[in-house]
């Protein structure tokens, strides 16, 4: 019919889930701590104020937006691999997080989300 690219050829490999209007998914490591949970999120280059974190039941939802910046004045992209624009990441944990304490910090471009459930949440 037409000699045009098949959209679904890369469709399922990088983009899944029922989320609207997000363009990428940051990689995440989840740790169990003595007091609760620690989530590391690879969101280098994302300003802290562009990140929004919330808890819904046993799910942690992290949404945000990576904006590009010009490292050197007047430069142009030669090639581009980093994903920009909106991202979101929903992480389901095996316990109810309602009432858990949430601490967000940023270290060397890795977002650290600490969930303290000890005394509050139940496993």
């Amino acid at each position: 019919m037409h000699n045009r690219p098949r959209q679904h050829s890369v469709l399922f490999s990088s983009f899944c889930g029922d989320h609207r209007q997000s363009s990428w998914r940051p990689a995440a490591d989840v740790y169990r701590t003595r007091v609760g949970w620690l989530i590391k999120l690879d969101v280098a280059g994302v300003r802290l104020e562009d990140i929004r974190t919330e808890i819904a039941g046993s799910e942690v939802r992290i949404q945000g937006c990576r904006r590009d910046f010009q490292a050197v004045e007047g430069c142009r992209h030669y090639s581009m691999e980093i994903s920009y624009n909106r991202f979101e990441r929903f992480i389901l944990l095996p316990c109810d997080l309602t009432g858990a304490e949430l601490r967000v910090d940023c270290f060397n471009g890795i977002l650290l989300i600490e969930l303290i459930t000890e005394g509050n949440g139940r496993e």
Partner: protein
Amino acid sequence: MVVSDPNDVEILPVLPLKNTVLFPYLLLPLSVDKPFSVAAVEAALAREDKELVVVAQRNTSAEVVGQSDLYAIGTKAVVKKKVNQEHGGLEVILLGIERSVIIKLEHADSHLQGRVKPLPLPEQKTAEVEALHRELLEMAGSALGMTEPKAFNEISRLLGESKDPFRLVYVLASMFNMELEREQSLLEAETSLDALRLMHSYLSYELQVLELRSKIATEAQTEMSRQQREYLLRQQMRAIQQELGSKNPEEAELELLRERVQQVDLPDEIRKEVEREVSRLDRLPAGAPDYSVTRTYLELLLELPWKVSVEGVIDISRARQVLDEDHYDLKEIKERILEYLGVLKLNPGAKSPILCFVGAPGVGKTSLGQSIARAIGRKFERLSLGGMHDEAELRGHRRTYIGAMPGRIIQAVRRAGVNNPVLMLDEVDKLGHDFRGDPAAALLEILDPEQNRTFRDNYLDLPFDLSRIFFVTTANTLDTIPRPLLDRMEVLHLPGYSDEEKAEIARRYLIPRQLKETGLSESDVSFTREALQSMISRYTREAGVRQLERTIGRVARKIALRHAEGRTEPVEARPEDLLEYLGPQRFMPEQTRQSLPFGVATGLAWTEAGGDVLYIEATLLPGSRGLTLTGQLGDVMQESAKAAQSYIWSHAESLGIDPALFRRHSVHLHVPSGATPKDGPSAGVTMATALASLYSKLPVRVNTAMTGEITLTGLVLPVGGIKEKVLAAHRAHIQRVILPKDNERDLREIPETVSREIQFVFAETIEEVLVAAIPELNGLLAVPRAS
């Protein structure tokens, strides 16, 4: 969740797309070459959010100048990846994010940009949406089963996971290559219900097309796979044969043919043709219809005896011995055959004669042909022409016809395996002819020594020399043989056998043969001379000896039965025993009339079964003049009767007949036996004698029979069949026979035993006949040379 405000108007670079629509949620790898498109991507990359708007072009061939060249609704997309290409273009991967509408299109420095407003997709949860959603999933499942059978499971699982109807529609739209207008209308659908309905109608159409395509493909494949299977099996067979060290059958066959071509001695012209055909065969695939035709043809060429002939030393005395062993009497024919052998001995290249044996059934024509072959040491082949009515049977069909075969002549030569056999063409007088041609005409060429040297069979299509074949034809009568054909043959009449000859033949050949067939020995049975005579004259009536042989066979079987029952004493068959063996006598011997009233004369007739004595009766009727003829007389015989009457009338005075008789009376002439058709001129003298006797009221001599043709002036002309007629007269105990003078020479054929007992009178004129037949006329007629 970051959701754009519908009222937010952004200014974004615009990337026009040809032939395709980017849907939200989907990735699109894209090559970007055009400068203003590259500039649009660069502008997007310069933005911190990497966003641009992708819109389909309305007219794919034209350049984008204004807003009207683009659809209004497009998709906001993020550039996910960008790679520079060598020739200056870009490879980008775009991810659709959000449906957007371009409110205003503007020209930036080097690219297009637009004021863009997002178009959110409202969620709808109605039963209809749900139903359509499920229906679409099902249809997509069956469509995917046809297009992507390998990835079917994974894709359908992923489709099933999606709960968003828009997302399902967009994914399906991108999977089934649909027209741009359809994709655009899906993108423009405002509600999920609209989008699902549109998709449903498109997909059902696609499904029909797919089903049709797969049906066509299956049909084509079934045909293909059958052929491929056969091909594969053949290849395998070939491989196995090669592995076993044998060649494939066609090659082996060809090799065999080539070997035979080398071995067979062929004339140069034929060899050239054979080699041409072999190389043609080599080029033909074995499955080609021409292959077997050519092969069969080649086999014929190689089998035909182009140069093979039987060259025995001709031994005249041995040949004479063989002929005498096989046949009793037939002096003239044996002489003719021996003459030819003498010629052949002196001049081996002499043309073979073409003999035609004519005679009644059972006189030994066919067996004489076999005898000739035996006598001269040649192969014998025989084919019957009786009832043949298709010229192609003799001359073959051209090879272009399916199932074509060579003609009977070439087939007979092939069977004989030599080019100089004795070829007997039986029943040449019984050739038919119809719209398919006249086989007699084909025989003209075959039997003409001048032409048959280069006889061309239609199938063979090469000249074959028939001139060395010794042709013998047989016929019961010459009347039905076309003149030109008869002209080419040397006619030899085989007369009927006399009773004495039959007895001799029976004793020499028939009795031993029948005894052998019934398993009796010669010491078991013997036939007395009288018994044999009785069987010949009272149980059979024929010129040949077939019936006689059957009669002997019947007696032999009766005796064999007696032997089988244990009564093994030798039997001598005597005339009085025949009643027991054969039943009552079939034929009474011809009763010689002891006295003849006037108006009756004894004639002699020739029939196919030999000769016969017949009495011609004439009577005067009062009343009108005229001549009534009865007794199944043919035209010639009727005319002969009229000539006889006219002669008698014109010579009434000299015969002492009152001319008034002719005026006052009519004549009825009858020839018994009334049921047998009769024809020919030979009863002329008999009818004239009967009429003379009638008018003169003087009886004809008893025991005097006559034959001969008369003319109006009273001449007696010679007739045929003298031997049979004389033999018949002899059987009827007639002592005087009046014959035309010119037939005197035929008496040589008559056995001594017969001619000794009969007094012959030879007449040149009817007066001489009348004087000899009616003694009282002697004084009236002045005949100078009465015998």
